[in-house]
């Protein structure tokens, strides 16, 4: 299964943020989307998630040679600032989410099993989410996005708000689930991208470009990425 982006264009007022972004993302890989501040990473995600309309181009899923448009169940989107309904407890939110998406869910576990999977402590499960820390909210958001088991998982700077221990747990978790998903992970922390991702994709001047590692060592690879980000020939 593939997610294909073809010549995606998006502009705000007169500013062209995406100018014909082209790329094919495949299942089973974690893609690290790198870009400088304001390069349009979040805009690209918002376009794929259909939060904003694109001005040109198209994107679709290709499955065994058959193209089809993306539907709601295909996408999970974890925002950089986690948003959860604060008037619910973690358990209530999860219960609600599972009830709503019951038909689409492939496997059914108990609520506590899900919390265990995400390493959310027992005492936190029945607290109102308004009292959750940033990292906890982020975990909840990640959890409900993952349990729906969407084909495409967009993660916008997801690990930056976690402490090192949780970030490590999350990394392991993402590696664990990657075989069933197309994971696109935006960040501007290069070490994280190199450490976690199978492929590095750079968003620069509104277009997407893969940086093949080939037989470079890590330092050379970093140099190459930075050169590309600067807009120089690598």
């Amino acid at each position, binding site marked *: 299964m593939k997610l294909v982006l073809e010549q995606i264009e998006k502009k705000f007022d007169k500013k062209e943020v995406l100018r014909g972004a082209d790329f094919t993302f495949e299942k089973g890989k974690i893609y690290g989307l790198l870009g400088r501040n304001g390069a349009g990473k979040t805009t690209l995600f918002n376009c794929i998630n259909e939060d904003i309309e694109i001005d040109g181009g198209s994107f679709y899923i290709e499955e065994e040679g058959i193209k089809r448009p993306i539907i*709601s169940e295909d996408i999970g989107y974890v925002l950089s600032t986690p948003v959860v*309904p604060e008037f*619910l407890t973690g358990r*209530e939110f999860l*219960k609600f989410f599972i009830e709503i998406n019951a038909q689409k869910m492939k496997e059914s576990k108990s609520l506590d099993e899900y919390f265990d999977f995400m390493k959310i402590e027992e005492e936190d499960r029945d607290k109102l989410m308004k009292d959750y820390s940033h990292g906890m909210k982020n975990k909840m958001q990640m959890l409900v996005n993952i349990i729906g088991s969407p084909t495409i998982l967009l993660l916008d700077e997801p690990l930056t708000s976690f402490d090192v221990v949780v970030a490590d747990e999350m990394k392991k978790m993402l590696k664990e689930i990657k075989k069933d998903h197309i994971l696109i992970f935006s960040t501007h922390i290069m070490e994280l991208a190199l450490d976690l991702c199978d492929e590095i994709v750079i968003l620069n001047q509104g277009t997407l470009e893969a940086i093949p590692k080939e037989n470079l060592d890590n330092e050379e690879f970093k140099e190459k990425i930075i050169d590309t980000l600067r807009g120089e020939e690598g």
Partner: protein
Amino acid sequence: MKTLLVSFRLSNTYGANTWIYRLRRLPVIKKLIPASLYGCGGLKKFVYILYVILKTILAFGSKFLYLGLMILLPLSILPGDKAGNFVNIFFFLTAMGAFTNTELFNPTKAKYYTVVLMRTDAKSYALSSLWWFLAKNVVTWIPAVLILGMQAGIPLGVCLLVPVVMTEWKLAGSALMLKYFDRTGREVSENNLKLFFSVTGAGLLLGYGLPWIRAGLPVQGFYLAAALLIPCAVCSLRILIKSKSYKRLYKKILNLNGLIFGVQENAAATQQKAYLSKISSGEVRTGNKKGYDYFNELFIQRHRKILTHSARKTAYILVVILAGVLLLSQFNPKASRGINEVMLNFLPYFIFVMYLVNKGAVVTQAMFMNCDHSMLAYRFYRQPDAVLKLFKVRLLTLIKINMIPAAVIACGLPLLLFITGGTENPLNYALLFVSILAMAVFFSVHHLVIYYLLQPYNVNMEAKSSAYSIVNGVTYFLCYMCIKFQAPTIIFASLTILFSALYIGAALFLVYRYAPVRFCLKQ
């Protein structure tokens, strides 16, 4: 002086930019004004000059308005000597203003930018802006007091002393507040509500109250007070000039929650915090509700403080009012006839009442702040059938909540009609009852539909849709206008019921048609 000029330029540029920003948000004009206007020389200068001119006109005009409305108008109904009453009202209102309109203690955006962000020296900024404030005050008061005051027959001496006494008071007030801050280190922002209400209360009471009991300040007393205030003002001046607390003061008043309203994220964060604090924790009972019913039930119960509890409170208050009116009608035949007349001819008035007791606006606001703001980020929540399912559940709950106070009015009005002598046409009872309930349903539908169709906020909780504010404004205006409108209940109630039914039908149609597309976060 230089500090002052810099802060001027800053606040004026800020003001002009705000104008451009607002203009760019209006539907049609948006297209005519490019974002580059912010940086464009000529046009920008034009807006800038326009802004300064308008500010100047306002500065002068507001004094005329204040003098006319707050002092001269009440003079016409107060007993006793005109000039005496004038000085009394002026003296005490100005004393009140010395603490509630100070410049020094007013936490403004301009101060935040100048002192906190641009790190201008706090003391020189504070003093220069205080001098400017006082000078501006004197200059803008002179024409108002000379023109309006003289016209009203106030002696020239008094008129000339007006700006002087005002300056004396303002200096004294500021110095006193500064001293208080030095002593206690407590926040003394002039927007402090406790301070504001106690000082304002006292000022108004003394200003308008004393003349009523003929104990007002005589004109000679005013001259004496003006003279006595001179040494006070001089002392105050010394305190103000010598003080070293300005930086500390600004740190305090400019960092308090919600006061830095100039910074958008902060305003939104404060607003969100305020809404989050309305969430009640504790037991909730959801029975065996599932899915959106379960979700909505939790929302309502966790917001019971502002929803069900507040509706109940309104209902209790209405019961008390109703009981009062019932009693009145029993003991006062004249009032009784009047009430009977109201029941039969003034039903339009109750549109405004029903508008006021309706919880729709509060509910939708809370829905957005504490629920939809985050939930709309989830794609499943924006699916057409999810939007409509939740809309239905919400509408029913909203109607249920609004029925609590509505029921009191709906039962109360026919009861009042019956007790005050009844009517020849018994249909009136039924119509009163049904039309009030229809209004309750109407407003519930209206608020929720408007919210679903014109959802005005973006991710940062800034209202982005002027259409939403316009619709709300027009709704308020129309309801308010109904107060002035009389019609026989039979006709008006029938029309209300018919209109409600049609409106609800049309509104629901529109929601089912468009809400799935329109109900999303604005970009």
